């Protein structure tokens, strides 16, 4: 399991288009772009890490009510046990008509050396 796939399935369940890196299609009225921030190994023992910490930036763009949508996303993240480390409204883009809201999410996973995923 990794954070990107977990976030993708959570956001898809909210019926918001989501892609990683950048949106390849013509952008709809609301969408989310996921960008990985940082991966880190922690809790070392016997020269092996015990925890895999992953953080991802969610950029929410919406032409509608951004407060309603960001609340939906945030609640879904918190319910799934994902840590929200930053929330920031970046403003209204005059040229495109999108509201831009940023959420930084983080989660800790175990390090499983048994599978290739």
């Amino acid at each position, binding site marked *: 399991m990794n954070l990107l796939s977990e976030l993708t399935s959570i956001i898809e369940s909210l019926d918001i288009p989501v892609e990683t890196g950048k949106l390849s299609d013509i952008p709809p009225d609301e969408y989310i772009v996921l*960008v990985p921030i940082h991966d880190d190994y922690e809790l070392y023992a016997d020269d092996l890490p015990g925890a895999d910490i992953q953080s991802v930036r969610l950029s929410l763009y919406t032409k509608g009510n951004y407060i309603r949508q960001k609340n939906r996303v945030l609640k879904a993240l918190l319910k799934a046990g994902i840590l929200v480390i930053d929330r920031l409204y970046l403003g209204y883009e005059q040229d495109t008509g*999108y509201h831009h809201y940023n959420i930084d999410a983080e989660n800790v996973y175990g390090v499983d050396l048994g599978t290739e995923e």
Partner: protein
Amino acid sequence: MPDDFALRLSRIEHNISGITEKVVEAGGEVAEKIARDELDRVIGSGTKFDSRSTGELKSALGASPVGVDKKGFVNTKIGFSEPRRRRYKAKNEVTNAMIANVIEYGKSGQPAKPFMARAKKKALRLCKQAMIKKFDEEVSKI
């Protein structure tokens, strides 16, 4: 408590503000270097057209002088100096901080390249190490 140890503690207490400034400065140097590396990595990467970067944003990056903040903590900040060079037409509209913000958080149609968030994560451990090293160095001089 042995006398020489008590004397040393007293000397450290006497010099603590100087030591703290040097320690924070050492941490700031490490953080600045990491931020510069991260910025260098994202500027001009993954652009639709050839990058027209002039290197100005990178040269504007720096650490503020060490000072005491509102809460009383000795602190330094990593950020961008202003203004941008005069020869640009948009000199009054575009600031370095604005450009850095767009790179960091993206816009619709331009994905975020979170160089500062990455630098912050990377710097945490390395800054601590550099600061502990500098503290030991300064204390050993006393």
